[in-house]
């Protein structure tokens, strides 16, 4: 099991463009969360998808949207890119059940907006 995978690894976009990032969860996991990690900061929760629906959302504008597919993979879309969107985007997967969910993180996609 390769664990959580993300693509692409790096991405350079221009301000105003749109970007799509992809994530495949760890085998057996059905919940996907997305985090933004700016340089020198801890990851910040964007949103979480479960059963193809957004279940929780952090304090991010509507420019950030997502999708989950029947195979549990997920996409993060960001419209009208701003310079401040430059960050490492992390995907984490988990599975329901039990009292606490352990989240497994992917390697991240480094987005640079110029």
């Amino acid at each position, binding site marked *: 099991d390769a*664990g959580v995978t993300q693509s692409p690894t790096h991405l350079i976009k221009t301000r105003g463009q749109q970007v799509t990032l992809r994530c495949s969860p760890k085998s057996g996991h059905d919940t996907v969360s997305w985090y933004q990690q700016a340089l020198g900061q801890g990851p910040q929760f964007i949103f979480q998808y479960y059963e193809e629906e957004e279940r*929780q959302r952090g304090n991010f504008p509507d420019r950030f949207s997502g999708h989950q597919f029947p195979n549990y993979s997920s996409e993060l879309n960001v419209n009208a890119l701003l310079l401040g969107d430059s960050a490492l985007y*992390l995907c*984490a997967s988990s599975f329901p059940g039990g009292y*606490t969910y352990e*989240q497994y*993180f*992917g390697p*991240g996609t480094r987005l640079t907006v110029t």
Partner: protein
Amino acid sequence: AQRVTQPEKLLSVFKGAPVELKCNYSYSGSPELFWYVQYSRQRLQLLLRHISRESIKGFTADLNKGETSFHLKKPFAQEEDSAMYYCALSDNAGGTSYGKLTFGQGTILTVHP
């Protein structure tokens, strides 16, 4: 709103010395606290969680609700402990933890030989 504070961005110790990485939190409910670690060129991974009350790689962390702290400790640091450490809090909405994590800013631990 929940918040996690790690007051030290950098922490340096010598091999064999005790180490303590500080974490304080603010949360109105009953928190679930975690420590995540990121070794060089590796992905973020769970080190330990307060609910398990376990020791992983010699590290322990005790949840102190009175002081709202969850400090990470190890009595004898090793060079391989050098990494970035994040304290994280999970909300517990309606008795079900959906796993949304709020992270601190992280502490870079360097253990010198």
